[in-house]
Each structure stands twice: as structure tokens, then as C-alpha cells.
């Protein structure tokens, strides 16, 4: 029955293009690696000092994998806070990922639910920002996306492990500016994200709102509240500009 199937009817284009995509993903993940290894290291050091076992320290970077909330959790464990408060704080701090997950959804059509489940597990602020830079060229490419995600988490886990094993010898991360790795990464990600004046305005206003909310004591909800308002202002300004100058 199948003997007459022409073997060369479908040229094997999947192989090389998948390899190219994997490589593209790896190279797009390098800035994240530069940011994650030192910050993961700082986390590993702190977790050890807070009394977490090596197993729990590694499990946190493997299963939770959310930078800010891992640091907050370690500080809560150190003061023997109750488990529920650690979990609720984690939920509130990470609710912002709902917005990121929603923002990527239009570009993940026709993905299998299991693929989406694997993709979402490693969605972080930084991987989200790298994906959203490539969106002008259409859908998110699977192989590239997973290469970015796996490389990023591997570097986070590697950093955690390095911090754990070198923990006692590293007393201060400041001389090497390791504490500036993530702020500096956010600077680059934000700058490369802004494509027009409305986006620049949205970034400026949202950033100022986030600072205001933080100073007002909303340290957990500030990011998500500022983002909701900022994106709404963006759409409003975009509509207003269209009304002012009806294009061809």
C-alpha cells in the first residue's frame, strides 16, 4: 500500500530549520543567562544563610522559579513566618504573570495544551520580555521559545547551585555589582521594547506610578496596579491620536 509513496516528495526542511531556531533561541537567551547566574548565586547564598537545606534551595529554583518571590520567601522563612503567608505572598507577587501570559496568548494559537503547559511553567519577567521583542515578526516559534526557556531556567538553577556551594566564601556581592545584573537587564529589555512615542509615554507614566504606589506602601500590588492603568492610558492615547489625525 505504501510502497508507491514517493520518498522525496517532502524535502526535509524541518531538521535544519528547527536547529536554526534552537540556536536562535540560545543566542536570545544569553542576556538572561548573564542576569540569572549572578542573581541565582545571590539567592543560593541567602537561602543557605536563612537555614534552607540544599534540597529545598534547589527545589525552590526548580519548582517555583520566580526570582523576586524566592527572595521574599527566604526572608519569610528566616523569621519563621507561617506557611500560608509565604504562599499568599508568592501568589500576590506573581499575579503580574497573568498579564504577561495573556499578552502572549494571541501569538500561541494552535499550540497543544501540553505545550502551553510546558511553556507557561518557565514564563518569567525576562523570558516574557525577550518573547515580546520578537512579536513583530509574527507567531512565537516553538523550538526557539523552548530553547530560551530551558536555557534561562538552567542558568537560574546553575546560579543557585553555585551560590549554595560557594556560600560561605562569598560575603558580599557588591564589589562585582552582581546586585545590578537584573536592574541592568531590565534597562536593556525596556529600551529595546519601546518602538514608538505612545509606548515611551506608557513606560514613563507606568514607572512613575509604580514608584508612587511603592512609596505609598503598596509594595505587593504596585506593579500590577500600575501596569493595568498604564496599558489603559496607552490605548486611550492611541485612540485619541487616531481621532485627531485620521489617516489614509
Amino acid at each position, binding site marked *: 500500500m505504501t510502497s508507491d509513496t514517493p520518498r522525496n516528495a517532502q524535502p526535509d526542511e524541518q531538521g535544519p530549520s528547527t536547529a536554526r531556531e534552537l540556536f536562535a533561541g540560545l543566542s536570545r537567551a*544569553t*542576556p538572561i543567562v*548573564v*542576569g540569572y547566574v549572578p542573581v541565582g548565586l545571590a539567592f543560593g547564598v541567602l537561602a543557605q544563610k536563612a537555614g*534552607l537545606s540544599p*534540597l*529545598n534551595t534547589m*527545589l*525552590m529554583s526548580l*519548582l517555583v*522559579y520566580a526570582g523576586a518571590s524566592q527572595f521574599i*520567601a527566604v526572608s519569610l*522563612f528566616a523569621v519563621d513566618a507561617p*506557611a500560608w503567608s509565604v504562599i499568599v505572598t*508568592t501568589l500576590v507577587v*506573581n499575579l*503580574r*504573570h497573568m498579564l504577561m*501570559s*495573556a*499578552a*502572549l*496568548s*494571541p501569538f*500561541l494559537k494552535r499550540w497543544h495544551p501540553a505545550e*502551553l*503547559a510546558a*511553556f*507557561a*511553567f518557565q514564563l518569567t519577567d525576562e523570558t516574557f520580555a525577550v518573547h515580546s521583542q520578537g512579536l513583530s515578526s509574527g507567531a512565537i516559534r516553538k523550538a526557539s521559545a523552548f530553547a530560551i526557556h530551558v536555557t534561562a531556567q538552567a542558568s537560574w538553577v546553575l546560579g543557585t547551585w553555585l551560590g549554595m556551594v560557594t556560600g560561605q566564601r562569598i560575603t558580599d556581592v*557588591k*564589589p*562585582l*555589582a552582581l546586585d*545590578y*545584573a*537584573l*536592574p*541592568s537587564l*531590565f*534597562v*536593556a*529589555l525596556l529600551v529595546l*521594547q*519601546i518602538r514608538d512615542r505612545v*509606548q*515611551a509615554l506608557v*513606560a514613563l507614566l*507606568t*514607572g*512613575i506610578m*509604580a*514608584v508612587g504606589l*511603592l512609596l505609598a506602601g503598596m509594595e505587593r500590588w504596585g*506593579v500590577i496596579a*500600575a501596569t493595568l492603568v*498604564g*496599558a489603559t492610558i*496607552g*490605548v486611550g492615547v492611541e485612540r485619541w491620536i487616531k481621532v485627531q489625525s485620521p489617516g489614509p
Partner: protein
Amino acid sequence: MDQGAITWTLIGMALATYGPRLLPVWLLSSRSMPPAVTAWLRYVPSAVLAALLFPLLLVNGGHISLGPKNIFLWAALPAAWVAVKTRSMVGSVLVGMAIVAAARYLFAV
């Protein structure tokens, strides 16, 4: 908390982190959204990154800090310039870190 209880807390944390990451892509990726919603979502990246970044650069110990000693803020300017000029994120990050490290070494800020 003993280590066993910490492990269970970690599992709760993992669920609390995974839920917000997973639910929107699961619920939204297979349906088409109104144009107003997709227009709104296009501003989320710029907005959320700025909301994460500005406090890191501007707030120090619960106060706004714009003085010369706020090296995080001043190092961000050349780092941003490198990002715009070279489109290289790695270069930008390394320049930012090098400036902060050098300023700490030279001026003890």
C-alpha cells in the same frame, strides 16, 4: 519551620506561581479576542517592565533618590545608550555592571 514543612510550603508556592502563568494562555490562546483587548495587551510589555524597573532605579530605602550617590540610576543611562546603539543586551548589561562596580571601587558609593 522544619525542612519537611518548608518542602510542602515550596509546593504551595510552586502552584501559586504556576497558576497565574498558565491560566491565561490556556484560556485565551485558542480564541480570538476583541481588537480593543489585543490593542491593550500590546502595551503590557512596556508597562510592566517599566513598573518593575523604575522602583529599582529610583527608590532606595523607602525614599526617592536622585542624588549623585544613586549609582543604579546613573549607570542605567550609559547602559540604555549601549542597548539603543548596539541592540546588544549582553553588552548593555555588562556595561551597566562594570560602571556600578567601578564607581563602588573608585568612589566607595
